[in-house]
């Protein structure tokens, strides 16, 4: 399961439609299963596209919708029936064959669309933001559902979304796109842990991006944040000069006992405000020199703190990713 992830307008749907054959690339090629299909019309590619609005045929029943691709392929009626029945079982819609698609809920329509695409055994299943029209609860349910169906049929799938959480939970590999370009490709953990640019760092999860310069002193490499604060780093082998340091809010802690260990940086700052979210909270701290840092606290750690008071942030030396600015 490959996921195309990016903000709206970044070209992910265009890329998907190019794979399906609805857009012609001005340059480059499309290869499917070891074959160059750049000039193949959509109907000969054996890709099945699940549309954002499902695009179910309103003049056909559920059965007819699902059977459509097989009828076009001139399967014998008996085989069509059994194949449709099988796939409807799989998506959990058995017994609704005679229904009209307009009489179904959004979630059911989504399943019909999925079944219609899967039944032709496509060489690649294409999904264009398939969950964006569902309500929040159903969306969570369908994530695992689609994932498990895709696993059980052992089909390659390309999935377009702008929802990073969806991408992280469903994808085996994520392709992050920005302004028409692929910026990073990798497994979910990989892109989360080691973003390769500020865009990725900011787009997936929350990141603090600090501008500054990399320097070196007697004890080793050092990052000097614009305005003064110094962060000592370990393992980050970056050339000296201007850079951006990205660090996740959950990698930082607030110091309550006034004791930084050997492996931690201690950065003084002023707590500006706290965003309380129930199971967690974000503390927004202004460092010396004006840079802002967000620090996350979870569960029982979450405590009420006085605003405008001085506070110390603990920053483990191995945390943070150095990015070229």
């Amino acid at each position, binding site marked *: 399961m490959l996921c195309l992830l990016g903000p709206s307008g970044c070209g992910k749907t265009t890329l998907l439609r190019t794979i399906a054959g609805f857009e012609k690339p001005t340059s480059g090629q499309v290869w499917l299963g070891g074959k160059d299909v750049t000039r193949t*019309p959509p*109907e000969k590619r054996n890709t099945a596209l699940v549309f954002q609005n499902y695009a179910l045929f309103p003049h056909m029943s559920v059965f007819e919708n699902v059977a459509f691709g097989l009828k076009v392929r001139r399967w014998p009626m008996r085989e069509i029936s059994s194949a449709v029945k099988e796939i409807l079982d799989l998506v959990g819609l058995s017994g609704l064959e005679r229904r009209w698609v307009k*009489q179904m809920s959004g979630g059911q329509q989504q399943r019909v669309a999925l079944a219609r695409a899967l039944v032709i055994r496509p060489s690649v299943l294409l999904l264009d933001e398939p969950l964006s029209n569902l309500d929040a609860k159903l969306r969570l349910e369908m994530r695992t559902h689609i994932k498990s169906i895709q696993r059980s049929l052992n089909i390659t799938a390309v999935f377009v979304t702008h929802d990073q959480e969806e991408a992280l939970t469903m994808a085996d590999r994520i392709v992050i796109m920005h302004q028409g370009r692929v910026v990073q490709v990798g497994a979910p953990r990989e892109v989360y842990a080691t973003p390769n640019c500020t865009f990725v760092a900011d787009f997936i999860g929350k990141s603090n991006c600090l501008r500054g310069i990399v320097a070196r002193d007697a004890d080793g490499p050092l990052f000097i944040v614009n305005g003064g604060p110094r962060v000592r780093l370990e393992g980050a082998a970056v050339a000296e000069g201007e850079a951006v340091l990205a660090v996740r809010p959950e990698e930082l802690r607030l110091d309550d006992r006034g004791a930084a260990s050997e492996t931690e940086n201690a950065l003084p700052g002023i707590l500006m405000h706290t965003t309380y979210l129930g199971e967690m909270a974000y503390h927004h701290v202004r460092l010396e020199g004006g840079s802002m840092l967000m620090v996350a606290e979870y569960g029982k750690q979450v405590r009420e703190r006085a605003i405008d008071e001085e506070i110390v942030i603990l920053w483990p030396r191995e945390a943070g990713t150095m990015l070229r600015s």
Partner: protein
Amino acid sequence: MTLATPSFVILGIGFLAPLVLLFLLSWRQSVPGSGLILDQWTTANYTRLLFDAYYFKIFWRTFTIALYATLLSLALGYPIAMAIARSKGRAKAFLLAVVLTPLLTNVVARTLGLMILLGRHGPINNLLVQLGLPRLTLVPGVPGIVIGLTQVFMPFLILSVSSVLENIDPALVEAARSLGCTRFGAFRRVVLPLSVPGIVGGSLFVFLLSFSAFVTPQLLGGGMVVVMTTLIRQQAMVLLNWPFASAVAIVLLLVSIVLVGTYTRALGGAERRESTRVAASSKISSWGRAVQELRRASYDLAASLGRAWTRLARYLRPMRLALGKLRFMVRAGGWGGKALIIAFILAPLPIVIVSSFSGSSLIMFPPRGGFSVRWYVGLLSRPEYIRSFFISLQIAALSVLIGVSTGTLAALALVRYRFPGREVLRTLFLSPLMLPAVLVGLALLRLLAMMGWTATFRGVLIGHLVLVTAYVIRTVSASLVGFDRSLEEASRNLGAGVFRTFRRVTFPLIKPGLIVASIFAFLVSFDETTVSVFITGPGTITLPVRLFSQLEYGLDPTVTAISSILVVIALLALLVADRLLGLEKFSTMR
């Protein structure tokens, strides 16, 4: 309710009372050839019409002519509807203009263009001769009538089908293709079945209009092809057998009512089904269910046709492969075909205008004898034409004035207030548009004769007002439906009185609708022919009627000049409408 009263008076005098009168008359006995009507009731008129082989043949002829015109409209109109639905921006505006222009120009002028085009020495026959083929007698005759009706009414079908096609989600076609359908397969399995409601609606409408058309069959049939409408005129005006003419008219009315009923159900079915589904799926009315079944049956029919095609295609496969190689040529041919159809829709207008500048006294196309304006100059020495022109202008101006003011009030009543019988009243107001104009003319003539108003100016005005009011009500209603009433409430809340609110808020907002309505009203009245043929007399002949009778008795090049004037006036009105509002809006209000 009181708001609708003025319009209702017009409708009552001009339409309802005459209709009742006509119905009663159709059961009376007449003395053949004398014009006398006896005070005795009889069913003879109806039995004669229904069981006499001669009259049945006329009925059957009318039916087949309308059927052929419908099928031809469908075959030629569908590709154009597709082109409109697919195009955007300027291309769409152009195509809409092409389709709308003929609808808004005078039918007699257009028919004249067709007479020249299809005539024995017209361009089509000349082309045939050049190709070494024999000349065809298209006009006068049934083929000419079918072609003429197609030319005149096809735009309605195009608008009906294209509006349905535009609402088909393009993703459906892509879905079909991603599931393995070819371009053509996606059309056949998805687009075509989904456009069935538009096809059914548009076809019914074209059939209805063709069945009750009067001007086109009369002129293109050269008076030799008798259809229902021309039979009515013949019986009433020539043989003076009023009861029998009334009986024919009543039968025509019944056929129309059945067709209109089916039409509104067919088109209303989709929305109704949608709304009932939202309300409660269990409470679908039996009628809704029937419509659903009908639609399902039509989809099934489309599917089985598709299967037959697939079977056939298997045998034709080698041919299709060969065709595939010629795809480029086929596509070019497709565009060529569409261009030809568009040319066919437009052709009569330029033909008439070009012919009017001919120097020869024979109407020919392309014209001979060089460029000349002699027929326009000649008009000046024909006082009867000038008089008719001013009569038409006066009647049109008065119709706009009275029709728009009363019609707007009626539209307000119909849209704003709920009162018992509202739906019935709406249907009554709009019915003069849907029912055969011959019927309206015949009935009104009878009433006017009884009132001693035959051939008077006010008589003609009443006839025009009936039609104009119906158009105004429909157009203004359309612009009122989308009106947000909280705007008026806001105005009242801010301290404006009822009249100030109307003047400062309501009126400015419905003004576009009123402008469209006024332009329509003017064109409807100025171009009105069929009703006027019945109710005008020596002193009150309007320009289209003068033109019509001239064409009935022979072609004199003067007619091309008058027709051109009529066409140009319509085009100017269209141009004004486009400048003021844009064509897109115009087409949805039509």
